[in-house]
Structure formats: structure tokens, C-alpha cells
């Protein structure tokens, strides 16, 4: 851990606009955000000697190397599951810390809206992994096939255990859409919502309302990671990786934990939080902004509890009224809009926003904020990171 914390940095970022139909191939989108990240860092394609990509993406590293003339790879591999993004940064940081590469590129490009509907099997059954097949075999015949259904199942238990009024979840989309309404590259620019809109929103999968759920989008993002030593010679002020962590626990599934001892807690996020705070030497009170997996609104209060920002059962009350989690509040949440207010890119956009906050270039901020905590993938295998301007 000592090789990574405060010794590696994110030095270049690129992100596309979020839309319902990009009109571009995923490789084209990937190439454009990689070019933007290179330019941001002050690097050229032959400098890139490491690439981490996602198993689900069409724009694999072979295609990117061919498209952009990156012919010097010595470190490459794939990460899996929706909760991968911070773990992809972890893989990249390990690569540069261990000296296996100098500049590692991380990217995802997904036409999640126009190409296919998320939540439907993207592979032939015969090609599914054993864990995916298990979900198919023991959940799908009962009509339990979407992530929304899984989150609803967890939320139902959470509401029961703590006696929470589900109306309070509405403040999360209200705050995220409020932030996203100021983000010109997001899907909801100029389109904030009020709590009344949430209360009128149709019941989707009871107890989730339509506005509790993200919409799919077409989008891409790229990041470049190097050592802090090399970062000092590049174009931008380095954004240091203070901590990065992954977690996977017993009885987990890709997008649910129906079999975990307590369905109302997120065991992987609990572990991710413990590791992030141990590695960085920080505590929740030191964090200035959070970029949390908000693919479904109830996951936010559950994560606030799992990470120690508030006591069990108090996450929804913490978000009530929205003032604490708005820009300018105690701990601003998903300041570029997140999945609910910017668009869906599995949280890679949350990492990009964390970097912008530390640099002071977020679309909504007045001055730099540091450190920032990010989680990706609250359900199932999860990852997280803390970035900042130094300790």
C-alpha cells in the first residue's frame, strides 16, 4: 500500500458528452476521450505503455492501440463487473508503482443507450460465466432480472429495518439533478427537478420510483495514471491517489446480495471504506466531497452509513432537504450530477469529477475541494478511491 498512497497520481482526464444516441462507434468515442486525456496531461500516444480496459467493452486495447499509434505497451489487462472503475485505477497505479509501466491509460466507452439495453443479457447463455449463470438460473425464471429489481429488494428490507419514509430518497435525485443541470456535457443540462416531481414520479419496481433510477446513456471517459515523481513534469497539477481499494465478499453476486447475512447493508462498501481510510490515514470528517454510486438513489444513504459518514439507519435523514449534500454544503455529493444527474458510465464519470474538484475545474464549483472520496459499484464486487492535492 505504501507504494501507491501519495506516490501515484491521475495526470490526465478526458470525458465525452452524455447522450441517448452518440451517433459514433464506441471505439471512436474511446479514441476521442483518450486524445483529450493525452492532451490534458501533455503526453503523446507512444508515451502510453500500459492500458486497463473493461471486459464488457467493444473498444478493447488492441483496437485503441491500432487507432492511436500506441505501440509501446508493456502492461495491459481487463477488469470486470460494473463496480470496476476505481479498481481499474488501482490496477493502473499498481502497474506504475511496480515499475511495469510509466503511463497507464484507463478508459471505458459505452453506447449504453443506443447499442443495447442494459439489464438484458449481452452474451449467449453458453458464454456466460458461472456466477452469471447462477443468477440466470435462480433469479431470472422468477422475473428478477434487472439491477433495479435487486436494488428494490435491498431497499425494501432497509426500509423495514429502520422504519424509513421512502419519500426521503427523493432528495438524492433532486440534488444530483440540481448539480447536473449546471453541467453542459451532461444529459440533464438546464433540467433540475423539485421534490414534488419525485413524489409524482411513477412507482417502477416498488419501492423504487422512476426518478430513483438512472437512465442509460452513451458516453466515454479516460484517465492517465503515473507515479507522483513523473507527474511533476507534466502539464497539470497532479491529483494524488491517497487510497484505492476493491472488495468482494462471500455469497456476493454481480448486482445483488440476496444471500448476504444482512441484506440492508452493503458489505463490500463497508470493506472498501475501511481500507480507504486505513490506507490514507484519513477519516470521514476529513473528506470534502463524495462521489458515490448513485445508479439508484437508495444506494446513497446506505453507502453514507457503510462508509461511516453517519450511523446505521440515518443516511436518508442525513440527505433530507438536500442542504448537507449540495455544493457549498457539508459534504457535496456527485457534483457534476453523477449517474442520476449527468449520465450513466458506471462511475468513471464520478472519478473524472473527483479529479476536477481537486484541480478546481468542476462545472459547479467555486474553489478546489480536497480530498474527495469515490465509490464505484455499491452492489456486488465494488471499488473506491480517495484523491487529493497531498497530505
Amino acid at each position: 500500500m505504501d507504494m501507491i498512497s501519495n506516490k501515484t497520481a491521475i495526470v490526465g482526464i478526458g470525458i465525452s458528452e452524455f447522450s441517448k444516441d452518440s451517433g459514433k462507434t464506441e471505439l471512436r468515442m474511446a479514441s476521442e476521450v483518450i486524445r483529450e486525456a493525452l492532451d490534458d496531461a501533455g503526453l503523446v500516444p507512444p508515451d502510453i505503455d500500459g492500458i486497463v480496459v473493461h471486459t464488457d467493452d467493444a473498444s478493447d486495447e488492441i483496437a485503441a492501440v491500432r487507432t492511436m499509434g500506441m505501440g509501446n505497451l508493456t502492461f495491459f489487462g481487463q477488469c470486470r463487473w460494473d463496480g470496476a472503475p476505481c479498481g481499474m485505477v488501482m490496477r493502473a497505479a499498481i502497474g506504475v508503482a511496480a515499475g511495469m509501466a510509466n503511463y497507464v491509460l484507463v478508459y471505458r466507452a459505452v453506447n449504453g443507450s443506443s447499442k443495447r439495453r442494459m439489464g438484458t443479457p449481452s452474451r449467449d447463455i453458453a458464454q456466460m460465466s458461472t456466477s452469471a449463470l447462477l443468477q440466470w438460473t435462480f433469479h431470472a425464471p422468477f422475473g428478477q432480472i434487472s439491477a433495479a429489481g435487486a436494488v428494490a429488494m435491498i431497499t425494501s428490507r432497509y426500509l423495514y429495518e429502520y422504519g424509513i419514509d421512502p419519500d426521503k430518497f427523493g432528495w438524492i435525485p433532486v440534488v444530483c439533478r440540481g448539480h447536473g443541470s449546471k453541467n453542459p456535457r451532461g444529459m440533464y443540462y438546464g433540467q433540475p427537478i423539485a421534490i414534488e416531481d419525485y413524489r409524482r414520479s411513477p412507482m417502477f419496481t416498488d419501492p423504487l420510483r422512476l426518478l430513483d433510477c438512472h437512465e442509460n446513456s452513451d458516453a466515454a471517459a479516460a484517465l492517465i495514471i503515473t507515479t507522483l515523481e513523473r507527474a511533476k513534469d507534466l502539464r497539470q497539477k497532479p491529483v494524488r491517489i491517497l487510497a484505492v481499494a476493491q472488495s468482494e465478499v462471500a455469497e456476493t453476486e454481480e448486482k445483488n446480495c440476496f444471500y448476504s447475512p444482512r441484506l440492508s447493508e452493503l458489505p463490500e462498501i463497508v470493506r472498501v471504506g475501511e481500507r480507504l481510510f486505513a490506507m490514507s490515514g484519513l477519516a470521514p470528517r476529513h473528506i470534502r466531497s463524495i462521489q458515490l454510486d448513485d445508479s439508484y438513489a437508495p444506494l446513497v444513504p446506505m453507502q453514507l452509513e457503510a462508509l461511516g459518514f453517519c450511523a446505521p439507519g440515518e443516511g436518508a435523514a442525513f440527505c433530507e432537504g438536500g442542504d448537507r449534500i449540495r455544493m457549498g454544503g457539508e459534504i457535496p455529493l456527485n457534483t457534476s450530477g453523477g449517474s442520476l444527474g449527468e449520465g450513466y458510465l458506471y462511475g468513471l464519470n464520478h472519478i473524472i469529477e473527483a479529479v476536477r474538484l481537486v484541480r478546481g475545474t468542476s462545472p459547479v464549483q467555486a474553489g478546489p475541494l480536497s480530498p474527495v472520496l469515490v465509490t464505484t459499484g455499491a452492489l456486488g464486487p465494488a471499488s473506491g478511491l480517495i484523491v487529493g492535492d497531498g497530505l
Partner: protein
Amino acid sequence: MEYNPAFPLLRPYTDFDNRGFWEGIKRHALVFQRCKHCGLFVHRPRPMCPRCLSTEKEWVPSEGKGKIYSYVTVHYEKTGYPGIKVPYSVVVVEMLEGVRIIANVEGIEPEELRIGMPVEVTFEDIAEDLTLPRVKKREVGSP
């Protein structure tokens, strides 16, 4: 449960590890994998006991009784499967054997569903090659 015949029924994918469970369901018997070495009940089935790593296991009939641990009702077909007509409910049931199963309900209206509700397993033959477990309300105190 009402099915929309315009869409295929979703069938379990059986393999050497889980076949016993689905063969049981076919003959209207709920069975769970139990480790012959340490006695641990396991669901979903798997090739090895996660506690003692034994591959010696057996299929043990369940009492078929449990309580609703959590539930959802799908109102919008995009979040469910379009081959099943909405609204429909899905429940997680904690069985007396200590394992949890996912199932649909029989004879329980969405607004009646409660966490902690005692239920028992029943079976529905949906097609010649597809039988699924359901749960219905169970009188507390019944043997």
C-alpha cells in the same frame, strides 16, 4: 403469475452442480444441497462445501417452510421480464434450514406482502419442461 406468450419462458440452466435442485422441483419436492462432511446447508448449489471444502454432498428434502425476508413488486415491465405480465411480486424467503431462496407468490396480493410473513413452498407446472416453486401464506402454529 400470468405469462405473455409473445416472449419465451426463462428456464434455469442446469449443470452437474445444480441439477438435483431442479429435478426436485420438477417432482414438486424442494431439496437443498447439504454437505455430507460438516452438515452445512448451501443454496445456490455449488461443487464444494464453502466451509469444509468437501465435495461429498447430498440433496436433502426441505420442510418447505420459511418467512419472507424481503420482497418487491414489479410495476413496469422494463425493470422485469416482458414475458411476465406486470404487476408481479418477487420474494426472498428465509427457509427454516437457514438458506434463502428467490420465488414468486401464489395467492398473496402485493399490498398484503409483509416482511416476516410465514410462508410455505408450493409448485406450479408452467410448461411441460418448466416447474417453478411459489410461496403461499402459512398458518402460524400449523405442524
